[in-house]
Every structure is written in C-alpha cells, then in structure tokens.
C-alpha cells in the first residue's frame, strides 16, 4: 500500500501504476456488475479533469456534485481535486430551496448532476439565484429525458469526456503537471453540515487530514485490495466520503455502487461486502425486517431461532471478542452458526463481512449486541464532519458495547469540565468555508475542536458518549432534593428506538419534574403486527391512534423504564407519560436533520400544544399539522392524540 | 350385393355401439365442457360390474332366476356408476373447474386409469360373459330378393332396438324433464345456469350419472356380444373419432358419426384392407377423423369455434 502519495489524485495514480488491473469500482448497471479497474478510473479521471479544464474550470473553483452513488460522480471528486479545485458533494434529496443556499455560498459555477431530476432542480436553482452568473455549466451523467432541453450550459457526461480527450491531446502533460503541483495542505473537499440548528456550514478538509483519517482506519482494520465495500450512503455525508473516497484511495479496495435505491438489499447480497458501514438506523431497519419476517415463520423455525439467538446473546459477542468460552457452548454456537447465524448473515448480505462500522448516532446496546452475537464484527467509531468522522475507533477484540472506543491514531482527546468532548489532531477541520466566526467558535487557542458532545472517558481510555452537550439537561429538583438528576434525552430515545415498533422518539424533561415523550411508530412493523392480529386500520394516522397500538407502545416504554430504573443516576428520568404522534417525523418538514437526528428544540416549538398537554396531565389533545409531500405539495393532517401513562419502577442497584 | 349389404349392416351394428359410447362423451362435454377420456373406462367398469353381479348375486342370495339376477345386477351396477359419478365430481371436477381444457382432459385420463384399475381389482380381469338372454341364432331375410339372402344376427337387431330406445329415452329426458332442461341450460352457458340458481356440482353429478347409464347399456350390449374384457376400454376410444366426426356438442351427430364410422370401418376393411395388408380398422376411424379435422374442425353438427382476443 502506498505511503508516499499525499494527495488523493496521487493516490489514484499510485494505484493505477501498482495494480492497474485490479477492480477499483463496480456498479450494477444493466443487470450486471460493470467494472472499472484502477487504470480505467485513472484514465477517466484524467479525461474528466481535462474536460472540466476545457470548460474553464480553474484551480480554486468549486465543483458541486449532486446525485446518488455513481462511479462517475466519485471520479468527478478526484477530477476536481486534480485541478486544485474543490469537490462539493450535496445531498441529492435536498429540495431546490435548501440547495440554492449552498450553491450560492460555495460560489458554484460547475455542477455534475446525476440525472434529469437533479438537472431540473438545478435549473430551478438558477431561477432562484436570479440572473446571478452562477451555475454556468451543468453536466449530467444520465441523458434520459434531457434530449430536448434547450437551456444554456447543459452538457452530457459523454460530451465532457470527449472534450477532455481533445484537450488532453492538445496539452498532453497538463494533467500530470496539475497533479504534480498539488499540495497536501490544499482543501480536498467541502462538506456541508446540515447542522441541527442554524444554516449549513461548509467544512473545509485538506488532503492531509482526510488522508490521515483514511489511513488510520485502513491500518486499524488492515484494509486493502480484495476488500469490497457497498457505497450506498449520501455522497455529501462525511461518513461516505471517509469510507468511499478517503479509505478507498488509501487502501485501494473496491467500491460497489448499487443498481438503484430499492435494490440495495439484493445488490448487497450479491456483492457480499467484506467491509460495511451504515448509520445505526440502517442496522435497525435490517433487524426490524428480520424480526418481522421471523414472526411469520413456522412455529418450529421460530423456536429454533429463539433458542439459537438466546445462545448467541449469551456467548456470541464473547466468541467474537476472542474471550474464553466453554467448549460445549462453542460447539452449540457452531451448530447455531450452521443453522441460523450463517444463513441469516447470508440473507442479510453479511457472510463475508470482516469489519462493519456504525456511527452518526449512538446505537442501542441491544441492537449492537445482536449483530456481534451472530458473528458480524460490528464496531463503532466516533467523529463528526469537522473531524473527518475520525476521532475514536473500536479496536478488534477491545469492543465494549457502551463505548465508541479509544482515541484513533493521531488524535488527542480531552473532556472539558462541562463534560464536552474536545479533540485535537490530524483530522481536525481547516475552517468553515467563509465563516471565520463559526470557525472561531469551535476551534480554541490550543487547536482543540469542540465537538458539542458530552461524554466520559473510562479507565482504559474508551470514550462513552452520553448525549449532545447542549441537550444534556437537568431535571427540576423534586421537593426536598438538592438538584434534579442529569437528563440525557438521546440516551433514552435510543433505548426506545431499539424496539422494532418504534421508529423515532423525542423526550422532554429539561428543567421539568418528569420526563415525557413523543413516539413515532414504525409503520411497517406495527402495520404487520396489526395485520397478523386482524386489526383493521386506515393509514398511518388511524393506526397510530389505535388503543391496541398504544398498549403495545406502553409496553415498550415500561421495559425502557425498567432498564433506566436499574441504571446509576437514571432512575429519575423514567418516562412518566407519552403520546404517539399522528405523523412521521420527516426531514422535509425540518423535524429531522438530513442525517435523521431529531431537532428536539424545533419539535418542542412546533408541537408546543402537545408538550403542554403532556405536562398538563390532559387525557387527550387535538392537533393539526402542515406536511410537505415529496412532490412539494403541502397538506394538513389532524388527529386527537391520547396521552398514556407509562409504568414506572422503583430505582434498584443492579447492573444494566 | 348381399355380401355388401351384410357388411353394411354389420358396420351399422358396430357403429351403433360406438354411438352409444359417443353419446356419453357428448353429454359430458355439453354439460361440463370436459372431454371425457374416461368414457371407455366407464363402459368397461359398468360392464364388469354387470357381468360379475349377475354371476355373484344368485350365489349370495341363493336364487336361480336369470332375469332377477340381471335386473338386480343392472340396478346395482347403476348405483355404482352413480357413486363413481359423484366421486369424480367431488374429488376431481369441482377442484379443476375453470382450468384449461387440456388439464381437464389429462385429468379424465387419470380417471380412466383409475377406473380400469379399480374395476379389474374389484371384479377380476378375465373375460366374462353377460347373458341377458339375447337371441343368439342368426336369421335369414330377403331370401326371395336375391339368392343367398342376408344373414343377420337377431342379437344385433335387438341391440339396435335397445340403442334406439336409449337415444329416445335420453331425448325425452332432455326435452321433458326439468333436470334435462337445466342440463341444456348449463350446456349453453355456465354463468346463466348458475344465475338461475342451478348448483353446478349437482348438475355434473347427474350428467356423469347419465353418461354412466349410457356406458352401462353400451357395456351390456358389447358384453353380451363379445364378452367383457379389458380391451373394451380401448375399443371405447373409437368414440373419440366418432364425436370429432359428428361434432362434440351434438347427440344426433354422435349417432350419425358412429354409424358412419362403423360402416366405413367395415367396408374399408373389406374393400381397401386387402390392398393395405388388412387390419386397417384399427386406425381407419382415427385417420378419417384427422382428415375431417383439417377440413371441418367443428365436425358435422358442431357449432363453429371462434377465437376471440
């Protein structure tokens, strides 16, 4: 593996020289896995870069990249970099209104878009930007439906490549030179943080830091040629950039792009990646699907499944950690592996996984344990856009369910007095694009980055994230008590969200005497449950209001409360009352971030009436809500929500 | 001349038996759209039942009277045929309703095999005679007209009369009785039939029973002529070309078709056979039908088949 190359374009060329015929990128297209080897990628990047240059793309220009995970778009990233330009990947599901801000902020002139949908959006943005001379060049990858577009500056990917070839022929050494003059300290990418509050900020990361981050991961898990990864997460997300760009180019393994959003599961089953990355909700979704399907299985199968899973819960994780386990259990586990775990991994597409990572939000311990127990080496890491998603890693064999692992190579950790986690080291951001003020807020004099997360370091230096620093609140002191207990909403919400029936949860309790919660049911899971019980329902709102469903949820809440009651200092934060929301919390309604973190404050305001009802000890509450549909239309959903009292438990001194 | 006429009559006799079997086909096809390969098997089954019961009953019940034996045997056999019809409807047809014709056809093949097996394991697989007291000795007619005269077997004449009677009986049944009319309704249009509240299942049981009855009569006549044996169920296959010729949906067609083929067979055997090396009656009927199919698929009396898109 190449250690001298210090910019991404050079890494690419290094691989093209070292392993020209090894597969670099695969995409399922036209029913088979079309493959680019490293040489081909290098060639195409070169042509692409020359093409951009021929359009007048200058060093320092920014290239917006909008679309799903397509090989061409990944190549565009490197192409821009090899011209000393900066790729700016944007969320493809953002609506024009959101996108226009970043296009303007990053002074975008050149865009590479996936298809008609994105092009239409960008043209809309042109309008929104007024006659400002932005977005002069829009290159589209998939020409379908765009044939009769007359707008200026539109160009197909093929045409761009042709132009590139011509330019390359005219200036044979242009590309080589441009790559040669690249500086590791140059900004390699601008990633916009959707940010739980305020408008998005462009995080500038240099080649040096992202390569360091990538290398850290690659070395920790000994990744390299022969490994396969699924690239299915938004390119604009730091996670995908770390895994599908930085680690890809450092490690030189193979990217695999799914055929379409709906086929990801099948494609994953075919590829059987050896290296996998997904945010907790992906793993949650998979597990939900598993439990739903198992519930429909025949009784003997269910029995076997239950038995095997019980065994796995007991010894699976230890076996994976290499801890010592009795021979009998090992034998039984091997049997279970043949009968259940193996097949399960196979249908999940995880048979060949060596390393799987999750991050982006705290993962429910039980969820985490499930995957490890069936032999999927799932690990957590911790980081944020500002740190290339690279702060802590769980090392093989040292995986503790509750922590996100110890400081990654090249990273220093410090816990501030208020519990906030501070980070210094290779992967810390250069700056926020054109936002010195914001940069100053997060980067202090000693060069520590303020993560905004509250956490604790344990004896072995493993970091345990409790919550967002600003979310961590205190309960109002109950009569007689000096101070209220510490209240970590996410912590509780994640416990709730582990139940397949619960999709989202929002807890309130800061400066209040009790904790109350909003719950979102998982439509698919609960719908299934209802159908199996022959419980008729008309759509989401109706289902969410059914007394049977409320009972079901109350049950989950009670379990969580029991859990909390058993945990040091958490007993007082048991959920007193909850209600089941009449609509799904939705990024399009700004209730969630694009990465599906709940915007607690926003929700508290938006549904103030419900919050008051919860604390006002009402029995139910009527509510009306505006909703945005995919096609941009808006409508209103209304319902009368019942408020349910949850079972609570006396605090006990027992281990969780 | 005389010889020709004799052959002709012979042919008519055989043909008449074909018709008897063919009628069974037509009945079932009209009422249930099923092309009943099992008709032959039903004939064999019925004949076996008749033959054996008429032989066993006197032994069991200890009486001599041949007539009584035959009557009882006939009734018993008829009961069995009804039972068979009922079972077929219950176990096969009701479950295969609105499947394509081809799988129904194959189903009846299965039924045929089943009946053959059942019949022989119940009643044995030798050659049995049925003696319903048909006059055996032949008679001479028209000696005056030309010398040598005509040698006719009375038995055949009686058989012809019985057959004719059967046809008339069926005709009456279909024209006069309400069930008969119901059957015709079903034949014309299943939906219509159901809509006027006729339970298809019962209709089918009845039809198959009637077909069973026809089979029984045919079986008896065959049996008393040539004895009852397995080959019967093959001979019965001859009814297929007959209905093709006459048209699947027409009873008169079945009769005329039968006679045509009976006669054709005999004459061709006599006059063409020698040229071709003999034994051509095995296939004559089928090839005739085949040729017919190519020129007039709907047969002599059948309705035209139109494929709609």
């Amino acid at each position, binding site marked *: 593996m190449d250690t001298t190359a210090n910019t991404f374009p050079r890494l690419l060329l290094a691989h093209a020289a070292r392993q020209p015929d090894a597969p670099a990128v695969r995409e399922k297209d036209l029913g088979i896995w079309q493959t680019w080897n490293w040489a081909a990628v290098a060639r195409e990047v070169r042509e692409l870069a020359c093409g951009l240059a021929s359009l007048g793309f200058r060093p320092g220009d920014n290239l917006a990249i909008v679309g799903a995970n397509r090989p061409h778009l990944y190549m565009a990233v490197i192409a821009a970099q090899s011209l000393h330009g900066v790729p700016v990947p944007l969320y493809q599901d953002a609506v024009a209104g959101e996108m226009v801000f970043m296009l303007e902020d990053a002074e975008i002139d050149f865009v590479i878009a996936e298809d008609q949908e994105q092009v239409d959006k960008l043209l809309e943005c042109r309008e929104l930007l007024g006659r400002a001379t932005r977005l002069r060049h829009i290159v589209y990858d998939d020409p379908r439906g765009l044939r009769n577009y007359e707008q200026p500056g539109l160009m197909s990917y093929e045409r761009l490549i042709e132009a590139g070839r011509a330019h390359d022929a005219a200036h044979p050494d242009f590309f080589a030179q441009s790559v040669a003059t690249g500086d590791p300290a140059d900004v390699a990418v601008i990633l916009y943080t959707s940010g739980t509050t305020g408008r998005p900020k462009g995080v500038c990361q240099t080649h040096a830091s992202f390569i360091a981050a990538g290398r850290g991961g690659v070395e920790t898990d000994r990744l390299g040629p022969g490994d396969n990864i699924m690239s299915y997460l938004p390119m604009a997300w730091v996670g995908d950039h770390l895994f599908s760009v930085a680690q890809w180019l450092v490690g030189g393994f193979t990217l695999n792009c799914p055929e379409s959003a709906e086929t990801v599961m099948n494609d994953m089953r075919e590829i059987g990646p050896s290296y996998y990355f997904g945010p907790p909700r992906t793993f949650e979704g998979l597990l939900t699907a598993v439990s739903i399907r198992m519930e429909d299985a025949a009784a003997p199968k269910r029995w076997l499944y239950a038995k095997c899973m019980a065994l796995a819960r007991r010894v699976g994780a230890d076996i994976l950690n290499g801890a010592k386990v009795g021979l009998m259990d090992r034998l039984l586990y091997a049997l279970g592996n043949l009968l259940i775990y193996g097949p399960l991994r196979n249908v999940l597409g995880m048979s060949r996984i060596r390393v799987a990572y999750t991050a982006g939000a705290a993962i429910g311990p039980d969820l985490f344990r499930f995957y490890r127990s069936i032999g999927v080496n799932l690990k957590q890491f911790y980081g944020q856009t500002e740190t290339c998603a690279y702060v802590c890693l769980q090392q093989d064999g040292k995986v503790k369910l509750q922590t996100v692992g110890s400081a990654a190579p090249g990273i220093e950790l410090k816990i501030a007095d208020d519990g906030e986690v501070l980070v210094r080291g290779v992967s810390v951001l250069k700056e926020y694009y054109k936002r010195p003020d914001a940069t100053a807020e997060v980067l202090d004099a000693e060069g520590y980055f303020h993560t905004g997360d509250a956490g604790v370091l344990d004896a072995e230096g493993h970091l345990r994230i409790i919550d967002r620093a600003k979310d961590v609140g205190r309960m109002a002191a109950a009569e007689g008590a000096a101070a209220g207990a510490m209240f970590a909403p996410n912590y509780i919400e994640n416990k709730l969200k582990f139940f397949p029936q619960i999709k989202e949860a929002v807890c309130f309790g800061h400066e209040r005497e009790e904790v109350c919660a909003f719950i979102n049911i998982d439509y698919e899971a609960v719908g299934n449950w209802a159908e199996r019980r022959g419980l008729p329902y008309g759509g989401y709102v109706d289902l969410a209001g059914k007394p049977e469903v409320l009972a079901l949820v109350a049950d989950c809440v009670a379990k969580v409360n029991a859990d909390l009651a058993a945990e040091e200092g958490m007993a007082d934060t048991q959920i007193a009352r909850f209600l089941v929301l009449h609509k799904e919390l939705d990024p399009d309604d700004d209730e969630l971030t694009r990465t599906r973190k709940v915007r607690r404050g926003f929700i508290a305001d938006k549904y103030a009436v419900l919050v008051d009802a919860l604390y006002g000890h009402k029995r139910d509450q009527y509510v009306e809500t505006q909703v945005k549909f995919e096609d941009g239309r808006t409508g209103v959903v209304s319902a009368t929500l019942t408020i349910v009292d949850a079972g609570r438990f006396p605090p006990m001194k027992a281990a969780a | 001349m005389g010889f020709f006429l004799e052959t002709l009559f012979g042919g008519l006799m055989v043909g008449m038996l074909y018709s008897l079997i063919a009628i069974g086909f037509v009945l079932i096809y009209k009422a249930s759209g099923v092309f009943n390969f099992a008709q032959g098997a039903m004939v064999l089954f019925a004949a076996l039942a008749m033959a054996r019961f008429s032989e066993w009953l006197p032994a069991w019940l200890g009486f001599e009277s041949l007539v009584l034996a035959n009557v009882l045997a006939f009734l018993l056999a008829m009961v069995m045929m009804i039972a068979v019809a009922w079972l077929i409807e219950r176990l096969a047809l009701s479950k295969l309703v609105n499947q394509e014709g081809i799988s129904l056809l194959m189903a009846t093949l299965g039924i045929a095999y*089943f009946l053959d097996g059942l019949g022989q394991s119940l009643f044995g697989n030798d050659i049995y005679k049925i003696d319903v007291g048909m006059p055996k000795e032949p008679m001479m007619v028209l000696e005056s007209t030309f010398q040598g005269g005509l040698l006719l077997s009375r038995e055949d004449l009686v058989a012809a009369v019985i057959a004719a009677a059967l046809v008339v009986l069926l005709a009456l049944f279909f024209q006069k009785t309400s069930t008969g009319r119901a059957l015709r309704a079903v034949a014309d249009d299943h939906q219509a039939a159901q809509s006027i509240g006729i339970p298809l299942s019962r209709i089918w049981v009845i039809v198959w029973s009637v077909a069973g009855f026809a089979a029984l009569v045919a079986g008896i006549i065959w049996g008393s002529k040539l004895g009852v044996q397995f080959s019967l169920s093959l001979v019965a296959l001859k009814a297929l070309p007959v209905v093709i010729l006459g048209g699947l949906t027409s009873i008169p067609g079945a009769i005329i078709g039968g006679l045509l083929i009976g006669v054709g067979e005999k004459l061709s055997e006599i006059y063409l056979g020698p040229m071709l090396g003999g034994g051509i009656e095995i296939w004559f009927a089928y*090839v005739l039908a085949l040729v017919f199919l190519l020129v007039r698929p709907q047969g002599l009396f059948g309705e035209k088949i139109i494929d709609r898109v």
Partner: protein
Amino acid sequence: MFYRENGQFKSTYRADQQIFPILQDRVLMLLFLVVAFAVVPAIASDYWFRAILIPFLILSLAALGLNILVGYCGQISLGTGAFMAVGAYAAYNFHVRVDGMPLIVSLLMGGLCATVVGVLFGIPSLRIKGLYLAVATLAAQFFIDWAFLRINWLTNNSASGSVSVAGLSLFGLPVESAAQKYLLCLTLLVLFALMAKNLVRSAIGREWMAMRDMDVAAAVIGIRPVYAKLSAFAVSSFIVGVAGALWGFVHLGTWEPAAFNIDRSFQLLFMVIIGGLGSIMGSFFGAAFIVLLPIVLNQLPGWFGLSISTALSSHLEFMIFGALIVFFLVVEPHGLARLWSTAKEKLRLWPFPY
C-alpha cells in the same frame, strides 16, 4: 440453509445466464454427474441396470422430448409411443440394411425419421387445439402401430414386426454388458438434456412458451405459429425417436410394435404431468417415479409379509397412477419439479419464510 450466495455476483451476461448460476448448485450437479458416471457403474448390480437404471434413463429421454411439446409448447400428444416406434424401427432398418452403419448414426437417423413423421402429424396442430389435437395424435398412434405390424417393408420383412438386434458396438467399444449400455444411455441423456435446456432458454424456447401462454400476443410480436409449433414437434419427436431407438436396441434387444403401443404414450404423458410440465428436471423426476413405483409396489407387500398377485399389483399401479394424475393436476399442476424448486427457494431464504 446451505446456500451462501454472498460474493457470487455476475459481471458478464454469460455468467448471469448460465444454467446453474449459483455455485452450490453447480457443485451439487457436478457431484451428481461424477456419481452417475463413475460410482454407479462400479457398484450397481445387473438387476439394477436392467430393471431400473436403463429404463429410467431411456424413459427420461423420451419424457424430456414429450415435455418440450406438451410442457413448453402446450401441444398435447398421445402419439409419443408411435414416434418412439418410428425411431426404433427406422434405426433398425438403417442398422440391418446398411452394413457397417455405425450404431450412433443409426440411432440419430431413427431420430430424424421420427422428426419427419412427428412434423407430419404436427401439421393439424396449426388448425386445431387441445383435445382435437389429442385425437389427431391418437390417429398417429394407431396408424403407426398398424403400419409396423402390417407393412413388412418397414420391418425388413420380419413377421408381425418382431425384430431384434445384437452385437452392438460404439466406436469399436462393445455395448454388451449392462454397465456399458447404461453408460451409453447416460451419455446420450446428458447431452440431449443439455441441448434441450439450451433450447428452452433461447429464442426458440421463448417462442414455444409464448405460444403456450398466450398465442395471440405471441403472433402480434411476430412469432410465427407454424414455425413455433412445428419446431416443437420436430425437436420433441427427434428426442423421442432416439429414445425409442435406444429402447429397442439397448433395453429390449428384441421387440415388436406392442412395445410402443398407446399405453406407452399414456405412460410418458403421465411422467411429464407428475414430473412437472415445462421443466427439464421434471422429466427426470417423472420417469424415476413411474419406473420405481411398480417395483416398490411389488416389493412393498413383501416387506410387510403379505403377498399380492402380480395382476392385482398391476391394477393397483393403474389406480395409483390415475389417482396421482388427478392429484397433481389439482394440487400442484407443475408436478414434482415445482415441489423441488419451492424446497430449494425455502433453503435459499432460510431461516426466513419468504
């Protein structure tokens, strides 16, 4: 349960379109062939060869041919026995009249003659369907039976069509012992099965199935009914013809038209129904089932210490066949093959039900 398909991705259409796209299946099939070619000949007894294996192989071949016609193209035929007969007698004629004619060529010529006759009797299928066609093919059955009985020229003037062959050899190797015969049949069967599979997954196969499923639509997209149907008859009767030749030459050695009478036709039809219409695999299942059932029926009572007359057991056989036909048509119209593939799906999805 035993499938591990992760990483078996296809990056070419050739790989994606192979007959057994899943590695585990390929391995299984390979093992199976090894056993069939190497192990069985070593261990099987003479009785096994003559009573079970050879009949099974040859009838599988015939069923395979019939399945192409009935299962894939939807044209029923009750004349299969006759087409086998054509194959057998034609091969016989080439064998005895042309001296030095290699065995394999005789067999194939037998197939070709069957093709010609098959197409001839297939012509009515252009005008008529289903039960009408059944009668047309019946005509073929009876006519051909008769022809070999009565037209001496066809049987090289041997009385009542009873002929016999001996001293077979193939490329200099003798085909005398049961094992040798078995290997000959097995090889031919495998080759034909492979070709048949190729056909049904190619353009022509799709034409057949199109005619079967929805002939009007098929015509509208430019499929010629004449070509589709007659080619099905041709291919089908070629394979059946070869099977017939093998039946005569290899299995019987001495035979007369009765060996290919209408019962044979029905038997083969039953095989494809029970085995599975429209499935190559099904032809094997069906043949195996129908070859084994009577043997089992004869043994069964013995195991329980009772004894039944052969007559009775043959009648029981009739009844069981009949009942099974109806059963399968009602319960699983796609026969054993479908049961097999559902089981396989279950295994692939294990532990999930769907």
